[in-house]
């Protein structure tokens, strides 16, 4: 049995105070500060709730511990001859995720241990991969479905915004925050069904706003939302307050850029597998139990949650769009 855990790897700073957080449906205990994952309130016996350990390790120990024999490549982004990101899977050891500027990350086969070997860069830089890929992978291994979407809470329910990259999911979520909504998750949403109802789990509290969107905001707008922690790749990274509880999903909006010829809001009458799966995330985790779980959650979504095709009209600002979407969601009840 090949299991890579803290006893095998060389931990960096093993004595630091743990950072506990409930994010992506996981009760996390991290061996480093992670401001993008809100800290769980201290409580007697909170240690007993931890189900996922995340530690910083030395890269050489991770490379040495990963079993090459029996491992296979299950994910690749970028050109094959020089990939930007690779994912290797070993049936016992788990998943090794490598994205060149962000380092190497191991997710154990059961999703309960994560080893991070980032380069020496600012925390907000490498933790973008942690919250954008690694934790979602662990959530998928633990029975949640992860979607490429953002979600906000209004009242006691969540609205989710899914769509292709560049469709405007994050900009729309940002405008909702400016209108008083609370962030549930940004860019990656973990969905579960406790008690047979589809819910969205709190995710990352770091919103990534494009420079263009940031420049459109009035001076001080971003500072009012939260704390600007860094800038990279044309985006501004802002830590904002985040919802702490899993929230029932009320409506899912599928964003599409449009030329304005068709109605803006269209409730899909026959929501099928394709509508849900095209927004699915961490496709490199390909296990029978995950496929069945995906089907279960997609079926529940199709039967219980309105799915609205949202055609983003040309020339509409994200602020105007948020106003229209909020009115639409209210009218749906």
């Amino acid at each position, binding site marked *: 049995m090949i299991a890579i855990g803290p006893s095998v790897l060389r931990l960096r700073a093993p004595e630091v105070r743990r950072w506990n957080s409930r994010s992506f449906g996981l009760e996390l205990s991290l061996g480093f500060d992670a401001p993008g994952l809100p800290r769980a309130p201290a409580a007697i016996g909170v240690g007993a709730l931890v189900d996922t350990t995340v530690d910083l390790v030395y890269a050489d120990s991770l490379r040495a511990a990963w079993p090459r024999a029996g491992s296979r490549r299950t994910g690749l982004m970028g050109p094959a001859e020089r990939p930007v990101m690779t994912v290797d899977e070993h049936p016992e050891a788990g998943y090794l995720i490598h994205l060149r500027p962000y380092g190497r990350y191991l997710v154990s086969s059961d999703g309960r241990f994560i080893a991070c070997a980032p380069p020496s860069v600012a925390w907000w830089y490498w933790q973008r991969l942690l919250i954008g890929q690694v934790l979602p992978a662990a959530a998928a291994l633990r029975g949640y479905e992860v979607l490429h979407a953002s979600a906000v809470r209004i009242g006691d329910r969540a609205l989710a915004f899914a769509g292709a990259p560049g469709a405007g999911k994050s900009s729309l979520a940002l405008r909702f925050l400016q209108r008083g909504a609370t962030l549930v998750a940004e860019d990656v949403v973990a969905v579960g069904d406790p008690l047979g109802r589809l819910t969205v789990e709190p995710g990352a509290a770091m919103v990534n706003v494009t420079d263009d969107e940031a420049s459109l905001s009035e001076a001080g707008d971003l500072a009012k939302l939260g704390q600007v922690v860094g800038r990279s790749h044309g985006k501004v990274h802002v830590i904002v307050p985040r919802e702490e509880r899993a929230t029932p999903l009320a409506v899912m909006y599928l964003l599409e850029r449009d030329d304005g010829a068709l109605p803006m809001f269209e409730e899909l*009458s*026959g*929501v*099928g*597998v394709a509508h849900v799966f095209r927004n699915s995330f961490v496709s490199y985790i390909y296990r029978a139990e995950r*496929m069945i779980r995906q089907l279960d959650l*997609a*079926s529940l979504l199709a039967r219980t949650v309105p799915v609205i095709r949202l055609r983003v009209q040309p020339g509409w600002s994200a602020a105007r769009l948020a106003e229209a979407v909020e009115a639409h969601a209210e009218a749906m009840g």
Partner: protein
Amino acid sequence: MEPRITTAHLAVPEHVVYRDFASETVLLNIKTGQYHGLNPVAGRMLETLDRVSQFEAAVALLTSEFEESADRISSDLAELCERLLERGLLEIRDPS
């Protein structure tokens, strides 16, 4: 119509799961990773057949449910079974 179908015990194999969606029934073949869709009527036929296992018993239930002739239901169900058998989404089992 294939005679073996009408007299056999038919069942959805363990490596196939199916779930109800708003407008279709989706089957997943875990071995191949392929998804298949059935319209609501075919989905209901599959669910009934999987529940009772025997072709004629399913015909009786579906005839009552859809208020159609037994011959019509029998023909449609047999065709569905053939297609599902071809795709490995249904199997004939030894009743013992």
